[in-house]
């Protein structure tokens, strides 16, 4: 079994001797690239089998472009699947209908015919529809494949159980029993405070479709993500050495019941950046010091049991002038700044919720200036330009009260994506 690669980076390679300091450590976890060699694993098609249920909102507000695009996206999904995969489709408004129960994707045309007849009407029984989708999946659980419900909605749960916390904790309950949940929110009127935590606790992905046209693209990423999943149930513990203290983990991960950080699923070849801030006492010049021990727990997609990867990071202390002369690692600066921006976005959301739009705008403005200052030496890097453009655009949209719902969603999803390395 191939392991993910864990690398540690600090802003400068060495730390300053004889001075207490705050050190940003970038931990980059890179899952392996899948090998084309198929001989090692019998029956391995290069991806796990999928057992999906698409839970599709057909309430009145979906009428028009959104419904058309959602149907197209669902049909696209059918086209991407293999006969060894299983698919069911559940549609909902105030009533729930199993369009077709979980079955192998052998007759694609008849599945697509059924999907093509889905029309918008009624209100939104989101919770029960999600449960029905889960039931379709749970009836045919794959032990080593991926069991997932994909919930697609543009609205608020307003029929049946509507309590956000309750639904979120149920999504976690279901994930602990082997079925994950992804959510796709469309437009400006759905509840991001439900859909995002639901996917996070549910072990899946949260997507925001801004334009109906993006739907197919999002579906494609979700499917590629499923196919490329390397490991699930990923957790991290960080144990600082004597004299070292963890000040902050900038990703704001949730904790598991055993007090470890709960990490997102790992995708083949796609790295996850984690930034931890440490308080370190200064040692003598030339001293090598073990800073941090890391334990990464994960369950590989094609294995039954969890594995643990252990690694430590050691640094050397040097004189102040030597440290100052050494090169600065842009990757660390960028990772730190982007995660701080993720927090700022959440703070701006809070201000918006309190009606303080000027305050929210000011926060984003400060993040923009801070990002420009911190990344001045590599301002033309695509990631930096994209980050600045996103901050600018959201700050600008905050001047228009008609765009509030959309602005809040953009803030929420940008912060979420950054933290979970998407």
């Amino acid at each position, binding site marked *: 079994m191939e392991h993910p690669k864990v690398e540690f980076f600090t802003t400068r390679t060495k730390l300053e001797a004889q001075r207490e300091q705050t050190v940003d450590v970038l931990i980059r976890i890179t899952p392996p690239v899948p090998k084309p060699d198929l001989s090692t694993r019998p029956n391995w098609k290069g991806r796990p089998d999928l057992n999906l249920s698409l839970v599709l909102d057909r309430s009145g507000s979906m009428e028009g472009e959104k419904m058309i695009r959602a149907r197209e996206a669902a049909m696209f999904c059918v086209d991407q699947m293999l006969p060894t995969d299983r698919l069911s489709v559940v549609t909902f408004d105030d009533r729930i209908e*199993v369009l077709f129960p979980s079955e192998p994707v052998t007759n694609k045309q008849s599945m697509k015919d059924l999907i093509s007849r889905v029309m918008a009407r009624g209100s939104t029984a989101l919770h*029960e529809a999600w449960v029905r989708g889960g039931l379709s999946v749970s*009836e045919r659980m794959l032990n080593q494949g991926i*069991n997932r419900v994909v919930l697609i909605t543009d609205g608020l749960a307003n029929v049946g159980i509507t309590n956000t916390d309750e639904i979120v904790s149920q999504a976690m309950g279901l994930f602990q029993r*082997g079925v994950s949940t992804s959510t796709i929110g469309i437009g400006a009127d759905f509840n991001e405070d439900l859909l995002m935590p639901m996917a996070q606790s549910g072990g899946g992905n949260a997507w925001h479709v801004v334009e109906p046209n993006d739907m197919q693209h999002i579906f494609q990423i979700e499917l590629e993500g499923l196919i490329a999943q390397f490991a699930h149930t990923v957790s991290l513990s960080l144990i600082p050495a004597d004299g070292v203290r963890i000040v902050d983990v900038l990703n704001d991960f949730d904790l598991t019941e*055993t007090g470890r950080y709960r990490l997102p699923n790992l995708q083949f070849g796609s790295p996850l950046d984690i930034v931890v801030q440490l308080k370190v006492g200064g040692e003598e010049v030339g001293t090598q010091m073990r800073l941090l021990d890391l334990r990464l727990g994960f369950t590989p997609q094609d294995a*039954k049991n969890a594995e643990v990867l252990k690694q430590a990071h050691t640094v050397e202390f040097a004189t102040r002038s030597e440290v100052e002369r050494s090169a600065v690692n842009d990757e660390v600066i960028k990772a730190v700044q982007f995660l701080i921006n993720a927090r700022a976005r959440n703070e701006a959301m809070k201000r918006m919720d309190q009606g303080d739009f000027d305050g929210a705008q000011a926060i984003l403005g400060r993040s923009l200036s801070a990002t420009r200052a911190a990344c001045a030496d590599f301002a033309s890097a695509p990631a930096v330009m994209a980050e600045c453009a996103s901050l600018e655009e959201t700050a600008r949209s905050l001047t228009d009260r008609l765009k509030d719902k959309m602005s809040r969603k953009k803030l929420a999803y940008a912060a979420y994506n950054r933290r979970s390395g998407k």
Partner: protein
Amino acid sequence: MTQMVLKERGRKYVGLPEFARAGEQILAEMGLEQARGTVTSVPDERTIRYYMAEGLVQTPEEKQGTASVFGYLHLLQLLTVKKLQAEHLPIRKIRELVAGKSEQELETLLGVGSPAAKKTRESDAKRYLESLLAPSAASPPRQAAAAPTAPLPQQLDTSASWKRIEIEPGLELHMRSDYSPPATTGKTRSLLEKAIHRLRRLRG
């Protein structure tokens, strides 16, 4: 590691020294490192006594002569405590996590869940979801594929399809239209027994 732990199922360890040795062997295999030397990595008899006093490992009830007889549950408790200590959890938190847990739950915490435990996963997810549905919605929804032109039910479970039969004033039997009554005397009897059982429980 998994096999090492699972093959201990059903084993008994007579006396504390034998129990400590079994724990020691498996822990050595698990390779748990304890940081900073604050926690001993291999539990000696004294440590196990301390764990029992702290309620981390249950005190065995079974005795052989004067020796306590430890079992698989005690072993899992010991291994879990050491594992969680290696993860720097405080004793208080460990006690919360370990106390009252079944063998299967402890196996899961240890990450050695057996194939049998995995097998129950399917029904586990299903049972969980079924429990989340409101009782009024417990019957499956219609399948559109079967009859796309038929009118849809207003609710998942329409009351129209239920028949009410009064047994005596204050007690009714509700029967769904598609229910077929028991065909044999034996089946009728077992149904009555179920009813008697339920009624007894009501009486407390």
